[in-house]
């Protein structure tokens, strides 16, 4: 018995694990996104451009 529910501990643990795993996955994607954007902006601030972008004069492929 947990929270007045039979096998309640197993149910709570399963949903807690679900919440933790999905949160970790979302955090991984978001942190990676911000970190990569920062690095790319830093490289571009140093004057580095891919050839296709530089020749197109903008945000090309």
């Amino acid at each position, binding site marked *: 018995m947990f929270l007045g*529910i*039979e*096998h*309640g501990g*197993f*149910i709570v*643990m*399963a*949903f807690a*694990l*679900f919440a933790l*795993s*999905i949160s*970790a*996955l*979302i955090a*991984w*994607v978001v942190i*990676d*996104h911000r970190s*990569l*954007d920062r*690095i*790319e902006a830093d*490289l*571009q601030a*140093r*004057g*580095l*451009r*891919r*050839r296709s972008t*530089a020749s197109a004069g903008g*945000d*090309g*492929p």
Partner: protein
Amino acid sequence: MTDTITTTSRLWDLANPTRFLRLVAAVQPWLIGLTTILFAVGLYMTFFVAPADYQQGETVRIMYIHVPSAWLAMFCYVAMAISSIGSLVWRHPLADVSVKAAAPIGATFTFLALATGSLWGKPMWGTWWVWDARLTSFLILFIMYLGLIALQRTIEDPTRGARAVAILTLVGAINIPIIKFSVDWWNTLHQPASVLKIGGPSIHPSLLWPLLVMALAFTALFVTLHLAAMRNEIVRRRIRTLRMMAASGEDR
């Protein structure tokens, strides 16, 4: 004929990473909104609409995260296998990006299916784990995902690594039908299919509908995260190109 050519041309247009990134940026807010709504409705139905099972009691609520996790773990692998064919046969520029981005997501869903299955099995079967065909083949799927992630990280050049990863992904795809039909081919402690089976679902609609909504929510979450991870991988490859240019002094 002209329609077919136009459709093929549009698909190949998407192969351009910049066009793909624009598409992701446009659909991402809608996908996040859809995923949030589906999870809100699904979790409400899980806890407040679905009744307790007459045999399993409240423990049946674990099914609403265990079953969609297992479905998505297999769906993700099938998506990776299709992308691998695209990578090997057509050398589609986004195919190996898709495989690389999907692997950690698939691994997480597989881990969730195994862990929640164990937490469901202990009170219902009296054991955390048995080496039956369904559980063992699912554990092999988890090991496959970890192996693919390790292989992706071992080979530094993404283009060279993509070929090895695509071949290993296709070899591992043989495990998917084994997982699906393991409960029919062997005598397992795990119950046979009760939703995706010939003759229709054998599960009561009051339990089935919340399960289907949660499955949709998991699918929307997978699509959202996969597109975001693909976008990250494209930017990572651009950074790699810029760093190589900086190292060779080509753009100075």
